[in-house]
């Protein structure tokens, strides 16, 4: 998977629903196949995961010391 990740944004410390809006915007504007974010545990993690799932993306999460790393993979086209 290394090398495909073109974007990695730290969204920790933002109030609801700003992380969700930033991820939504990134999904709409970037053409990367895989997008990577770091979000806070709890609501931001759940909300962003829910949004990504709704958009048909696959989500992989890795717990960090202070937050969660989310790898959002777009559905393959065609």
């Amino acid at each position, binding site marked *: 998977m290394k090398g495909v990740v073109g974007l990695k944004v730290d969204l920790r410390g933002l109030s*609801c*629903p700003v992380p969700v*809006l930033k991820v939504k915007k990134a999904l709409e504007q970037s053409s990367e196949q895989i997008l990577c974010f770091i979000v806070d*545990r709890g609501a931001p993690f759940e*909300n962003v995961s*829910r949004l990504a*799932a709704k958009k048909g993306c696959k989500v992989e999460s890795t717990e960090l010391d*202070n937050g969660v790393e989310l790898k959002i993979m777009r559905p393959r086209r065609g």
Partner: protein
Amino acid sequence: MKKSERLYIIIAGLIVGVIALLLVFKGNPLNMGFCVACFERDIVGALGLHRATPVQYIRPEIIGLVLGALVAALAWKEFDVKAGSAPVTRFLLGMLVMIGALVFLGCPLRMILRLGGGDLNALVGLFGFVAGILAGVGFLKLGFDLGTARDAKKVDGWILPAAMILLLVLLLWKPVFNPGAPVLFKGKPVVAEGQKVTSAPGPVFFTKTPPTEPKPFPGAMHAPIWLSLIGGFLVGLAAQRTRLCLAGGIRDVALTKDAHLLNGFLAILLIVAVGNLALGKFNLGFENQPIAHAEHLWNFLAMGLVGLGSILLGGCPLRQVILAGSGNADSTMAVLGMMGGAAVAHNFMFAAGKLPTGVMGVSNFGKGAVVIGLIVAVIIALTNSEILAKE
């Protein structure tokens, strides 16, 4: 959406509704099993920071909410102490939300409880609340953001829970530091039934209904301490786990068509309406509703202010308390702002209540405060949006 997630938030809504019904059944004022705004206001009054003697009591529900959220956050490793996202702005927004809530007479949670009791003024309030949230969503689309909070020292997140323990001690101990000062109501000494006016409250003040009053004052109506405390604790646990937010539900539907949080909102409304019907307490109409008034424009605008302020803060008053208990120091600032707003709302006569004409309503001071509050909220929204904040 994961099915379990949806199930949990519906269960959380049902827990909130059932506990709210139970607390009213056991002594809380009608349609006020829970009210984050009213209860914070009562605590502020109990500490003598406002002089509205009918609404002074250390509400254990708030203590329970904070401690429930704290325990849940610790148990699930979510106690994350963060600070520094526009704390003073959040304090001010908290004040505005409280002023709006006290002109309407309830936070969003009590709005739902009132609606579930048949109070149609709360429906007018709900329309205003939705309008305020939609305005907030508009600002979010313009890039509104109060900035990033950073990791802070752990102790910063422990101060509010510690203060809650202190409040509980004061509630159980009821200390009197100034014996001899008379208990005053409307500037005159109050004689409690069968007692001489010798013992006075202070440093904590608890509402006593004078014997001449036909009905008990709201501050004198409360469920047993342990029940309120446990009820608050359970709701705090459930709300922390499910992220229940009564502004977030409507916001997310408008913003991302995500109805997740709205399920919690609807579950509370449903169970409370069913419960009130079953208990024979459902009273449909605008007039003679408990602790409410029928000034439609001001119910609408006041809840509009609450809705807009809640979106700018990132969550409703309940959610702010829950986040504060989970270590979020910025939400703690919002909660403290709400408490400051409660003192201001009563000292400046903004809060709705009985007018000189004898009916419940909003004073001209209260109307002015809502209008100015809306203007200030819009200024905060614009100055923190990308379109204006570009440097």
